[in-house]
């Protein structure tokens, strides 16, 4: 069940008015949402306590410059703040925030996480070069009009978690023809907001449910096709090397990733430095190695470290100057590693991180290597 928010002429505007109201009524102390930068070619995260500033903000921005979870991390990594902040973000940003909260990097106690039905994002590079066409394109996407897949951020064309997540409050608008928005509470915190506004959650949601289901079907099909293509491209050492052959080791993919939060990445640390002669030895024994070294080790290492929490937001691809489909590869791998532990990153705040939870008896195929070893038959005194 949901409450209903009437929409006048524009969807984003109606959401802005809602946010303004909850600020004016002191239901929350501040709102975190995107605002267009002065040059007009990008958006920044602004946390605002003055409701008049909300007029200049944009509930749903066409682009995704900084992953919202990174903004939340910069706000709360030292602990929760003392004021209540509502953060309005895309579903993948909320999912990343939930992962970061499990990893101790975001504190959600005083945050109200709000998401909306996301129609996808416009790639950063095309938006920067032509903001007004980018905005037109995004309006079409919001209205559900067909746009060509090449114009949308590649991760968005295969995103299957584009709607309600584990957020406290969700703005559902798919299938409603732009005339109203459903306010769907996802937690007691979300419910409290509706109660404080005296908005009864009494509308049933079947039209919206159906629209989301239909869209998901389409998205699942295009994700499966994308996975198939990626799977073929990266199969075998040679495939993987070819995909990353253009990599200039700038590490932008890691810097843009919401999940890579380590203060000092291994690959930047002293431990990663190697004695020159050991590099030269490798060059001699292998006939040749490429420099800077450790390019593949960086990508495969990052994969093993964070793929269980990858939310497939596509920020890594967007940040890559060499046009490498980093996110496609990482989502492909993440899909498999998460499935192995029946986990889905950010989907549910209550699901423990797979590496923190284990069962005493599981994964037996992993370590039975001496055929006559008795399971559990150990002689440890």
């Amino acid at each position, binding site marked *: 069940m949901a409450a209903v928010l009437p929409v006048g002429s524009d969807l984003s505007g109606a959401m802005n008015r809602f946010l303004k109201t909850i600020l004016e009524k002191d239901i929350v102390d501040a709102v975190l949402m995107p605002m267009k930068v002065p040059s007009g070619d990008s958006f920044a995260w602004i946390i605002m306590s003055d409701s008049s500033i909300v007029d200049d903000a944009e509930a749903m921005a066409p682009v995704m410059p900084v992953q919202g979870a990174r903004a939340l991390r910069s706000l709360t990594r030292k602990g929760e703040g003392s004021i209540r902040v509502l953060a309005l973000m895309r579903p993948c940003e909320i999912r990343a925030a939930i992962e970061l909260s499990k990893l101790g990097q975001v504190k959600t106690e005083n945050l109200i996480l709000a998401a909306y039905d996301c129609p996808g994002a416009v790639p950063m590079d095309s938006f920067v070069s032509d903001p007004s066409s980018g905005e037109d394109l995004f309006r079409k996407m919001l209205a559900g009009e067909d746009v060509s897949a090449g114009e949308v951020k590649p991760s968005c064309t295969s995103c299957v978690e584009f709607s309600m997540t584990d957020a406290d409050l969700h703005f559902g608008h798919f299938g409603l023809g732009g005339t109203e928005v459903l306010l769907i509470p996802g937690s007691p915190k979300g419910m409290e907001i509706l109660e404080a506004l005296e908005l009864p959650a009494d509308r049933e949601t079947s039209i919206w449910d159906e629209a989301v289901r239909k869209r998901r079907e389409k998205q699942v099909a295009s994700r499966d096709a994308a996975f198939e293509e990626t799977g073929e491209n*990266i*199969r*075998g*050492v*040679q495939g*993987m*090397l070819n995909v990353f052959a253009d990599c200039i080791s700038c590490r932008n993919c890691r810097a843009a990733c919401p999940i890579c939060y380590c203060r000092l990445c*291994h690959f930047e640390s002293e431990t990663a430095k190697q004695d020159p002669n*050991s590099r030269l030895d*490798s060059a001699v*024994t*292998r*006939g*040749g*190695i*490429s420099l800077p070294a*450790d390019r*593949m*080790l960086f990508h*495969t*290492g990052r*994969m*093993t*470290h964070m*793929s*269980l929490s990858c939310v497939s937001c596509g920020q890594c691809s967007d940040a890559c100057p060499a046009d490498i489909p980093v996110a496609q590869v990482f989502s492909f*791998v993440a899909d*498999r*590693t998460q499935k*192995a*532990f029946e986990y889905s990153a950010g989907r549910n705040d209550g699901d423990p991180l*797979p*590496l*923190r939870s*284990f*069962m*005493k*008896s*599981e*994964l037996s195929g*992993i*370590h039975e*290597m*001496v055929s006559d*070893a008795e399971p*559990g038959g*150990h*002689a*440890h*005194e």
Partner: protein
Amino acid sequence: MSEWQPRILAILCNWCSYAGADLAGVSRIQYPPSIRVIRVPCSGRVDQLFILKSLQSGFDGVLVSGCHPGDCHYISGNYVARRKFALLKPLLEFIGIEPDRVQFSWISAGEGERFAEVITKITEDVRKLGPSKRLVKKT
């Protein structure tokens, strides 16, 4: 003696497998001279990167060995290690590294015999596979 010998990195938990290796030595049990040992405080300390790095550095195989389930001195390090390993294994296979090159086992301090068996087994498995050429770009 010019036959190719596999080089295998054995990453052993201090409390069990490392002591098992010691017992094998003290008891003069024979096993192939194929391993180089790194001692870690617990199998839970082994990051997937250690394994990738050893392969990249030219080892032909990697063995990680910790305490039997229930016996980890830090209670659960070996269970976590098993999950990390389960995560790495399919990735290695996907990028074309033969599954037998990287193995995981439990060996206790009292199992000198078993230590020798495990080393013999991985050495033979790797010998069959031949020198590691993977993670090396062929031009």
